[in-house]
């Protein structure tokens, strides 16, 4: 992965038509401005991941009796560590 350091109000240009500007930097949050052609879809990566996961999940055909058996074997994992 290419990593570049930028200060507030600086930016980068991708190809000929996409411009990303660092608008504001706070302690744990960066605000980005993006100029791109209308047909370029821009989403936050969590949303992109969730769309993909929803599509995968939608096709998990799972008969209830199998699921019931499966659940009886289930050992729930430990607590979720916040990332």
């Amino acid at each position: 992965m290419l990593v570049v350091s930028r200060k507030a109000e600086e930016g980068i240009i991708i190809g000929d038509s996409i411009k990303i500007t660092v608008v504001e930097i706070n302690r744990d949050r960066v605000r980005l401005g993006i100029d791109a052609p209308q047909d370029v879809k821009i989403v936050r990566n969590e949303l992109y991941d969730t769309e993909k996961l929803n599509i995968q999940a939608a096709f998990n055909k799972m008969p209830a009796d199998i699921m019931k058996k499966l659940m009886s074997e289930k050992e729930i994992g430990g607590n979720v560590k916040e990332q």
Partner: protein
Amino acid sequence: MNLIKIKTRDFSEVEISEDMILNFPQGVFAFEDNKRFILISPLGEDKFPMWLQSVDTEALCFIVFDPKEFCPDYAVTLTDEAKEALGYSEGDSIEYLVIAVIPEQYKDTTVNLKSPVVIDNSKKTAVQLIAQEAYPVRFPIFKKEEN
């Protein structure tokens, strides 16, 4: 209340009371056109997982879990945008569900804790939102077998 018949992906046709329908004004991510779902509890009342079945698309169904089963202190901030979509008012009964991805190797099943489905039981509305909190999108629900 009217009874209506719904074709489901995993349980053929079911007859449900119309007031069981949950309205998703924004659909769910990647399936924004599906605005109405029902929750089916084949394992017994209030037993998870449940099946979140689209009313409008027979083939569209999610298997959902209670996130508290994996994360007892699970809590997600309801954004103003989500409250507006739900028609939420103070005191409404709110419930969170998370969507499972169940691969053929079912021990690799994960749930998406980052993007819960939030149900307003008082209004019979629901939205899927992206949590501001740092939860994983792929949380394994089975303990890894020690080799």
